[in-house]
């Protein structure tokens, strides 16, 4: 039976982790390679790096991080943030990323999703959707949630599936950072509309939130803070999910 995936996400800025894990045995809390290794040893089903480096001069740092991580972690590695074109995707994959997540560039130029899914295969193209609730549904935003687009999230999800995206990483902007749980309505709507897997993101604060997220129809749940700050370990999370009859890999 296919298991639901738990994906810890690390925010990386200028090659360093922004929020650190509270682990005593960690030599360097800011080293993404070391943190990723702890996650993969702890049973992470995949690992996600979000590069939040603001300046172009420091963009190269993520390539180095990905290179080092992929030599130590043997579970799938997704990298997102600042991916603008086919060359960016190619570079990340050559460094050892298994999937690349595209956000703003997918909205501005859907051809990028089409071309890259043909060139590299749909399996490595994840489209990240940042959505915010409005009167009629959900609107998508770009540039890390700063720019509104007027585009309906459901319409965009359907379009991305058609363009060849292998997965959708859906983040609720209303819920992100609140620790009050995923936007379940949004996850339900999108995962029942498309036939590709949906990764739920934004808002997880407790283990019950992970349960709710996976019951909404999402195939995977992404979480940052609860693992960053050591509130729960991956093992605890998985055991809890299993106790609630959610199929996970233990």
């Amino acid at each position, binding site marked *: 039976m*296919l298991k*639901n*995936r738990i994906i810890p996400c690390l925010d990386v800025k200028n090659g360093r982790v922004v929020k650190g894990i509270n682990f005593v045995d960690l030599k360097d809390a800011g080293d993404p390679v070391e943190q990723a290794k702890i996650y993969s040893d702890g049973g992470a*089903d995949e690992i996600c790096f979000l590069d939040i480096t603001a300046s172009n001069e420091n963009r190269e740092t993520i390539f180095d991080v990905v290179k080092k991580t*992929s030599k130590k972690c043997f579970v799938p590695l997704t990298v997102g943030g600042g991916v603008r074109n086919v060359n960016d995707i190619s570079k990340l994959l050559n460094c050892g990323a298994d999937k690349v997540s595209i956000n703003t560039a997918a909205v501005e130029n859907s051809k990028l999703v089409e071309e890259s899914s043909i060139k590299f295969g*749909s*399996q490595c193209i994840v489209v990240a959707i940042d959505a915010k609730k409005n009167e009629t549904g959900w609107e998508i935003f770009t540039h890390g949630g700063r720019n509104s687009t007027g585009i309906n999230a459901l319409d965009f999800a359907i379009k991305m599936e058609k363009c060849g995206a292998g997965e959708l990483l859906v983040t609720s902007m209303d819920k992100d950072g609140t620790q009050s749980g995923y936007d379940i309505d949004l996850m339900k709507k999108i995962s029942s509309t498309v036939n590709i*897997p949906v990764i739920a993101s934004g808002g997880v604060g407790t283990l019950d939130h992970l349960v709710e997220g996976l019951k909404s129809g999402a195939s995977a749940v992404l979480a940052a803070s609860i693992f960053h700050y050591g509130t729960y370990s991956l093992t605890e999370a998985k055991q809890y999910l299993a106790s609630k009859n959610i199929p996970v*890999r233990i």
Partner: protein
Amino acid sequence: MNITIVDYKSGNISSVINSFNEVAKDKVKIEVTSDIKKIKSSDKVVLPGQGSFKSCVDGLNNISGLIDSLNEFAINNKKPLLGICVGLQMFADIGYEETETKGLGWISGKVSKIDNQNGKYKLPHIGWNQINIVKESNIFKDIENNSHMYFVHSYEFIPNDKNVISATTDYSSNVVCAVEKENIFGTQFHPEKSDKIGLKIIDNFIKL
């Protein structure tokens, strides 16, 4: 011993290279190449594959003499070869992804889309699924039945002779996820992304 990972521009093979290097350490020489002389003279060959069946077959065809060398290696000389994902799928006579495309024809059968039962099952089949080992195989040495492996695919290999099937996985139906025919091995899942248990399969292949 030296092992060659065939680089025919089939997409991302970094993880395959990294995992083989991790397992081989300094004991075994791992070479990544499309040089047909090197392929012919190596002890074992790994045939990765990402993207569509058609794009991978095109990739093989684009390198002059590559398919002949692989035939010589695996069929005439019967040396061990491991196909991963689309690398396994290409063993078939024919594939139906994008358009009808001729495969290597090493293991008689076809590659068609997984039946998603009208949307009941999401495609691609992505994530960790358990393998059901149906035939004793040297690459499954010390691998427990029902172990989890990492999958990413929308198409499945359906061999004509069911005796070549060494493992299946349950997704919509019993999907073939490992085959073995004499010296030819294949996994639909990605051992290179399946954590320690996947590395064990790579180790088993290296030790064949």
